[in-house]
């Protein structure tokens, strides 16, 4: 058990400090946004992002960096470093491909949001609306998942919990008479209900504990039910026995009020500055953690030497010692691809096709992220774009490689976390290596505040993008084009508050497959937007129908492959991460690769088959001296004829 049923004061203090700091940042940001118009200030920070803010906030980083990735290294071993290896080029691809032109075009057309860019560059309100709808679709998915993660962290600090794990079903369970009657009414055989009736009125803190207990009772049946049938009954019973989880709901409310609160105060800049703040905290946390974890392994090594281990153990590099311990506790697969299979089901975590795919996924997920694109649009100058490239390069190298080393130390120091509990490795290791230090709990709290900050910052940036999508791209563009600044301001606050309420309501019964949903929406956005963005900034010949074709075919291919794998069950479920919400890996490759290929082909072919955009409009964005002609603009709804 990680944290007993008492508040974890160190973590709690660190989280409260984090929230206060974020509120303060919100107030500072509020002052800074007052300089220009409300829309440009609140949603774009008056195009004033400097190098650090751009570098450390514009690419894909979330709570997953600090929680999901170490858990995967702990579970599957060094193959996971190959899984993440594309981050070596993410800084240069993220800013070097689109950055300069994106910043230029967004200024040339006065774009505040990503749909603005599409709308103005092609003088097509319809295209802008389509992009808005896609953004709202993907961002809503991502945000719902993030609220659950934030609420879980808060719950753990607030009242303690049995597990840090993001993947667990939240809530406590009690088998009641009415639950059993419900099962009988649903057609579950009487002998099954009798078998589980000894569990009546017992309390279970987590779903795994509950499921284990029910499975144990079902196993006593003669003949024992098949595993699929038993799983189905357990699932049915779990749904009927779940109690209201007040600690989780409290955590959800505190998290939502804090994050919506400071975003509402400071808008885009608050989101960016808190993101910067958490990124710096994460770096400090990782460096501190690496030193402490290696020290923990070194102490273990010294103990083994004192207990008569061979002399070569004493001379061994600390990390090598940790590796050898980890391999002893698992198998040699831990040190190689495709990764260690802890469940012994024949799962191949990273076959070469997927390793190849992830070199695309991280790069294009960064390129196609709407939150990232807006931040590039908000940069101050090309000097900031240039500096961001190497600042982020250094940052990534000092985050991802040390985190892998920490997780390997975790496997050596806490070797036997059960499968399904491996998300606990970071908090457990943090507590273990700081336990002997003065103020150790507070130090571990500081380390653990990083993932909480990451989740807050992610939610905050999504809130801004969603609110700007509704207020700017839908309301101002299509409902009331001449709305006053004050009206838009009030509407923005209303929209953000409403999103907060919706997020709380949808998370009262939280979604399953959290990580899979994040992956789906991240790669889905990349599949939809990457090729159209490249066409928008570089290709003069791109047309509105071509853009629509690229957007729809990219998204359609992604959704189609998820439908084939997740709903129809095509292909093997034994590669990649274990989840039911999975795509069909055609030829062993991730759906993103197929989606990009289809999107590119559709975009190019349809553009070449349709009439080119108005020459004066193209001249505005592609020529050194734009033609002296009256330009069509989206404002006058000059849809380019196909």
């Amino acid at each position, binding site marked *: 058990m990680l944290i007993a049923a008492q508040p974890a004061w160190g973590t709690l203090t660190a989280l409260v400090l984090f929230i206060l700091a974020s509120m303060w940042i919100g107030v500072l940001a509020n002052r800074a946004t007052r300089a220009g*118009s409300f829309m*440009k200030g609140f949603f*774009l920070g008056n*195009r004033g992002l400097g190098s650090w803010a751009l570098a450390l906030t514009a690419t894909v980083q979330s709570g997953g960096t600090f929680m999901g990735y170490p858990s995967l290294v702990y579970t599957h071993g*060094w*193959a996971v470093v*190959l899984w993440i*290896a594309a981050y*070596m*080029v993410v800084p*240069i*691809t993220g800013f*070097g491909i689109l950055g*300069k*032109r994106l910043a*230029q075009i967004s*200024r040339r*057309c*006065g774009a*505040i949001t990503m749909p603005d860019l599409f709308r103005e560059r092609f003088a097509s309100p319809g295209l802008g609306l389509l992009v808005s709808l896609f953004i709202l679709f993907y961002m809503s998915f991502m945000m719902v998942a993030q609220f659950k993660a934030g609420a879980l962290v808060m719950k753990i600090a607030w009242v303690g919990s049995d597990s840090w794990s993001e993947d667990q079903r939240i809530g406590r369970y009690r088998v009641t008479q009415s639950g059993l009657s419900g099962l009988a009414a649903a057609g579950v055989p009487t002998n099954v209900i009798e078998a589980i009736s000894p569990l009546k009125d017992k309390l279970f803190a987590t779903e795994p504990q509950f499921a284990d207990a029910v499975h144990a009772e079902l196993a006593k049946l003669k003949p024992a039910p098949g595993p699929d049938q038993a799983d189905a009954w357990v699932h049915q019973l779990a749904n009927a026995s779940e109690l209201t989880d007040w600690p989780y709901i409290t955590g959800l409310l505190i998290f939502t009020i804090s994050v919506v609160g400071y975003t509402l105060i400071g808008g885009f800049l608050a989101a960016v500055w808190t993101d910067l703040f958490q990124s710096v905290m994460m770096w400090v946390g990782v460096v501190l953690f690496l030193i402490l974890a290696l020290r923990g392994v070194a102490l273990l090594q010294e103990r083994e030497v004192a207990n008569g281990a061979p002399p070569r153990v004493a001379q061994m590099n600390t*990390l090598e010692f*940790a*590796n050898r311990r980890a*391999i002893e506790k698992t198998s*040699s697969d831990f*040190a*190689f*691809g*495709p990764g260690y299979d802890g469940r012994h089901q024949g799962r191949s975590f990273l076959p*070469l096709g997927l*390793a*190849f795919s992830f*070199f695309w996924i991280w*790069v294009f997920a960064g390129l196609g992220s709407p939150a990232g694109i807006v931040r590039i649009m908000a940069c101050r*100058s*090309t000097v900031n774009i*240039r*500096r961001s*490239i*190497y600042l982020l*390069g250094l940052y990534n*190298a000092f985050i991802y*490689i040390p985190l892998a080393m920490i997780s390997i130390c975790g496997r050596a120091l806490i070797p036997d976390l059960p499968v399904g509990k491996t998300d606990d490795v970071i908090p457990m290791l943090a507590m273990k290596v700081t336990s002997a230090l003065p103020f150790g709990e507070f130090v571990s709290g500081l380390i653990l505040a990083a993932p909480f900050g990451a989740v807050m910052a992610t939610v905050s940036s999504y809130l801004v993008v969603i609110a700007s999508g509704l207020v700017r791209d839908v309301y101002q563009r299509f409902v009331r084009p*001449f709305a*006053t*600044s004050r009206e838009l301001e009030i509407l923005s606050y209303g929209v953000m508050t409403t999103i907060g309420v919706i997020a709380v309501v949808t998370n009262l019964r939280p979604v399953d497959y959290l990580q899979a949903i994040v992956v789906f929406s991240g790669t889905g956005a990349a599949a939809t937007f990457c090729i159209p963005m490249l066409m928008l900034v*570089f290709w003069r010949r791109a047309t509105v129908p071509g853009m629509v074709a690229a957007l729809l075919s990219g998204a359609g291919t992604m959704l189609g492959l998820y439908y084939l794998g997740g709903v129809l069950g095509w292909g093997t479920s034994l590669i990649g991460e274990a989840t039911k919400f999975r795509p069909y890996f055609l030829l062993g490759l991730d759906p993103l690769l197929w989606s990009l290929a289809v999107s590119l082909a559709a975009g190019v072919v349809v553009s*070449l*088959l*349709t*009439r*080119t955009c108005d*020459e004066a409009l193209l*001249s505005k*964005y*592609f*020529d*050194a*001296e734009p*033609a002296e002609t009256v330009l069509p603009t989206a404002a006058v709804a000059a849809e380019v004829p196909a």
Partner: protein
Amino acid sequence: MPTDAPAAAPRREDPVLKSARREALIVFATWIVALAYTITYCARYGYGRTGDDLRYVFGFPDWVFWGIVVPWGVCVVFSWFFASVLMTDEDLGEDPPGTEANPTALADQQIQESGEC
């Protein structure tokens, strides 16, 4: 039915577009080289091995060190070189007046519309 673009006078391409395209090509090439090296090296030395021949370099399994850590370092150095030497600074321009993004003209317009002084 494809139609040709209307005949236009000789035009000079936007300098930002030119430099951005050149830089994007360099970046794409960097990505391809990194991908090709890392995947090939790791496929060759990181897959299908048993633990018997495993060697360590600074505590990392040999294939991780040479296949991932070293190219990662090279990428960081190249990123610095690219950003400092190959990538040029350009004037990004200003937001057009009279739009929400450039409020000076818009503010005047809104004051007139709302009748405020």
